[in-house]
């Protein structure tokens, strides 16, 4: 599997590998046990979601956007809905914001518990993996109660939410919060006192605050380096305008710091859920949304469990978006990955990769490698004409569709 190159070994890992659930490929040049160079190849999960959004109407897009990522599906739809509501000028009811907030925090809980399990699996601590995944089921059961599905719960819709929270469901949520708090406090205690865990995580995958700025890392990776990069705090949206978040930061700058940040964030999420349930106002949960958006563009940011999630919509006035751009948090965190891996032991590679909580399905892009042909940059209008020509070749005449100038 390996090849010799100046007395160094190049170790290819992936795309199918046992440590992560998703396909990603790494070429790691080893000098003995030390990682000298790491090349990350991603893109195996690229499905062309942005293009798919452009060829469907907004209501259909909501379902596609929900399936960008199975773990932070609510964060993606929240962001997309907010961008839509921005452009349409919708006044979303306060109760809807609170329900979005509660589901969002529950999602953060399940995502961080999942991460804690995967990370402990990477360092060979399978007991903790089984513990956290068992506790995660409590949150998933709640999400299934709220939305009817364990993964893509479909709570968000344009102009509000689709499901209301009944009083006894809120009691269930509070009850689960009590159970989880006890368990997460135990994990927090474990993370700060268990010597093997600390020895395994401390000092690896270092990303100093300067590096974080250089690679523009986001989310817990940035917060573990002491940079307050939490959209809920720096640019509050929705419910966070009314309920302030205590941001969690840490100054370890390494994998251990990222673990602490995530564990503390879970406790903060539980606090937020309790406050939201206490403060939730009565009233309608959604307003009627238009099918079409006025021409224009907007960009919205939402704090997903993994960091800053950015959605951009450009509309030409029809019921289909002109351009949709999704910048998921993992995409920002991948840039520093090679740098984080270099200089550490081969055995640390899985946990350093897992420490950014990589999500390939959010991130994967198509890269066109130039094969010696002349590259040309086409303008948006040229591309549109090219598309019309292609459709005509296939016997479809799009001439009857009026295109408004942008």
């Amino acid at each position: 599997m390996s090849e010799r190159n100046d007395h160094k070994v190049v170790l290819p890992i992936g795309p199918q590998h046992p440590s992560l659930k998703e396909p990603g490929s790494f070429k790691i040049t080893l000098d003995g046990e030390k990682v000298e160079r790491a090349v990350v190849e991603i893109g195996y999960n690229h499905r062309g979601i942005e293009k798919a959004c452009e060829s469907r109407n907004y209501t259909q897009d909501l379902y596609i956007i929900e399936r960008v990522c199975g773990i932070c599906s609510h964060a993606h739809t929240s962001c997309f809905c907010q961008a839509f509501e921005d452009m349409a000028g919708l006044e979303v009811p306060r109760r809807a914001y609170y329900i979005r907030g509660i589901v969002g925090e529950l999602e953060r809980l399940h995502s961080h518990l999942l991460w804690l399990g995967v990370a402990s699996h990477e360092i060979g601590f399978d007991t903790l993996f089984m513990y956290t995944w068992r506790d995660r089921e409590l949150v998933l059961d709640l999400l299934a109660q709220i939305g009817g599905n364990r993964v893509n719960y479909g709570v968000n819709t344009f102009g509000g939410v689709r499901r209301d929270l009944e009083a006894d469901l809120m009691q269930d949520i509070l009850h689960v919060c009590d159970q989880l708090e006890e368990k997460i406090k135990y994990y927090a205690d474990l993370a700060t006192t268990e010597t093997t865990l600390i020895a395994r995580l401390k000092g690896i995958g270092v990303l100093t605050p300067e590096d974080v700025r250089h690679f523009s890392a986001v989310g817990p990776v940035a917060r573990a380096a002491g940079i307050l990069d939490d959209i809920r705090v720096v640019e509050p949206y929705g419910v966070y305008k009314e309920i302030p978040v205590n941001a969690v930061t840490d100054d370890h700058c390494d994998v251990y710091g990222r673990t602490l940040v995530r564990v503390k964030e879970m406790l903060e999420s539980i606090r937020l859920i309790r406050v939201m349930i206490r403060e939730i106002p009565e009233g309608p949960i959604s307003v009627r949304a238009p099918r079409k958006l006025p021409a224009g563009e907007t960009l919205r940011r939402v704090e997903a469990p993994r960091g800053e999630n950015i959605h951009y919509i450009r509309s030409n006035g029809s019921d289909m978006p002109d351009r949709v751009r999704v910048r998921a948090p993992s995409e920002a965190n991948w840039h520093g990955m090679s740098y984080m891996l270099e200089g550490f032991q081969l055995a640390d590679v899985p946990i350093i990769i897992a420490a950014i909580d990589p999500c390939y399905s959010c991130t994967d892009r198509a890269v066109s490698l130039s094969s010696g042909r002349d590259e040309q940059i086409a303008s948006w209008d040229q591309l549109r004409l090219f598309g019309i020509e292609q459709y005509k070749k296939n016997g479809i005449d799009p001439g009857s569709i009026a295109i408004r100038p942008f």
Partner: protein
Amino acid sequence: MGLLDKAIAWGEKKSPWIIHFNAGACNGCDIEVVDALTPQYDLERLGILQQGSPRHADVLVCTGAVTLQTRDRLKQIYDQMSTPKFVIAVGTCACTGGIFDSCYCVTGGIDTIIPVDAYIPGCAVRPEAIIDAVSKLLASLDRKEGKRE
């Protein structure tokens, strides 16, 4: 049927080893597959064990609409598995391509590339559905064995 064949068939039925491959899923079904292996659902009580290498596995549990990038890899992994081998398509995307069917980078369901023995529709599938599919697959092995004898 020789003694060795009988031993292999028995082992397969009593303890099928699975390998999980994501051919371009949104992560939802993958998490549910891992979920089915963790304490709440615990597929291991049926003798099912997750393996890292395709060469050790009997059942390929595959999720996601097949993207152009993973297409060849999926074929390779299937070829690397030793016979007899089975494929379970987990999730609507794996069954038909689902919501991503018309995307430019997607070929469609798993069965456009390799033969599939069991389909589990759902977005995302629930762990109960995965357990049901696996037990049905094992039951169908029983029937096949009956035919052979």
